[in-house]
C-alpha cells in the first residue's frame, strides 16, 4: 500500500528497559530451546529406534531427577519465548498491540507454563 499515514514517533523515550529485556529474554530462551529441542528430538529418535513403548518411557522417567528438570527448563523457555514471538506477530501482522494484547500474551504464557508443568507432574507422579 502506498502513502501510509504520517508516522508519529513519540519524542520521550518510554519502555526502553522493558523492550530491551524482552529482547534479551527472547534470545536467551531461544538459546535454551535450541539445546532442548535437539535433546528432545534425540530422545524421540532413540525411543523409536529402540521400540520403547509409553509404559517403558514412563518407567524410565519416574524416579529420574534429570528428565523432570530438563522438561521443566524446556517448558519455562517455551513459556517465555512463544508469547514474545507472538507479541511481534500480533503487533506487526495484526496491528494488535497495547495493554489488551499484553494481557492476552501473559495469559498465553501462564497457560503454556501451567499446561507444561502439569504434564511433567503427571508423568513423574
Amino acid at each position, binding site marked *: 500500500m502506498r502513502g501510509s499515514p*504520517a508516522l508519529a*514517533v513519540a519524542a520521550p523515550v518510554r519502555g526502553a528497559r522493558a523492550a530491551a529485556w524482552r529482547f534479551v529474554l527472547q534470545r536467551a530462551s531461544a538459546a535454551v530451546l535450541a539445546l532442548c529441542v535437539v535433546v528432545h528430538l534425540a530422545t524421540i529418535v532413540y525411543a523409536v529406534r529402540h521400540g520403547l513403548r509409553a509404559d517403558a518411557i514412563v518407567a524410565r522417567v519416574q524416579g529420574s531427577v534429570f528428565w523432570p528438570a530438563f522438561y521443566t527448563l524446556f517448558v519455562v523457555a517455551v513459556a517465555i519465548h512463544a508469547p514474545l514471538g507472538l507479541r511481534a506477530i500480533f503487533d506487526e501482522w495484526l496491528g494488535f498491540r497495547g495493554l489488551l494484547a499484553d494481557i492476552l500474551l501473559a495469559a498465553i504464557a501462564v497457560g503454556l507454563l501451567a499446561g507444561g508443568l502439569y504434564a511433567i507432574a503427571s508423568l513423574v507422579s
Partner: protein
Amino acid sequence: MPSSPASSTFPVRIWRGGADGGFERYDVPRRASQTVLDVVTHVQRHIDPSLAYRYACRVGMCGSCAMTVNGKARWTCRTHVDAVANRSGLEIAPLSHLPIVRDLVVDMAPFFDKWAAARGQFVPTATRHDDFARVEPQSPARRAIDATIECIGCAVCYASCDVVGWKPDYLGPAALNRAFTLVNDVRDGAGIARVRAIARDGGCESCHTHQSCTKRCPKHLSPTGSIASLKRIVARSALKGEL
C-alpha cells in the same frame, strides 16, 4: 532491454497523483546509457511538465532521487534503464512507506523524524576553545563506522524494509545506522540516552534481519550489521542495569 537508436521508444508507467492516484503510460525515446532519472526528466520536459519528482546532484551523492523502479527502491540517477527494464518497460512509483506528496515526490519528514527519535544528532563534548579531537583511524570504534558514515539519506533502505511497513513506529535502518555511527564516535556525549532511544519498542530489537536494507542500499552499506551491533549494545546495557 538492448540499447537501440534514439528513434525507438519504450513504455514507461509513472505514478501520478497522490495516494489514491494511479499509473499513466508514456512512450519515452530509448537512448544509450540512459538512466531512470533521464527517463523521468524526459517525461517532465517533453511530455508532461506537471510531473513532480525530486533530484539534485545527478551523481549519487545527494540521496534525493530515490524512487520505486519496477517494484524495487533504487537511486534513479545511477540506475541504468538497461539494468532494470523488462519486457513491459519501466514502472516508476514513489518510495514505499512514506506519504505521497504528489506523483513521485514523497514526504521525507517521517523518515528524518526517526533519525531525530534515534538521537541521530551529534552531541558535542568539547567547546570551540578545545583543540581538535584526535581520533585514531585504526581504532576499533573508528573502523566500525568506516562504511556507515557514507549514508546519503536516500531512504532506499527504509522503503525496502518489511518491518517499517508492518510496524509504523519502527525507527528503520537508516536512523539506526546513524545512531550506530554516533554510538561509536568517541567525541559524542549522548551516551546512554542514545542507547535508550534505540532500545525502545520500535527500536533496533524490532529488526528481523531480513537484510533487504543491505541488499538494496545503493552505497553498499550494511544497516543490518549496524543494527546487529546495536542489539548487542542494548542487551549489554540491559544486563548492566543501565537502561
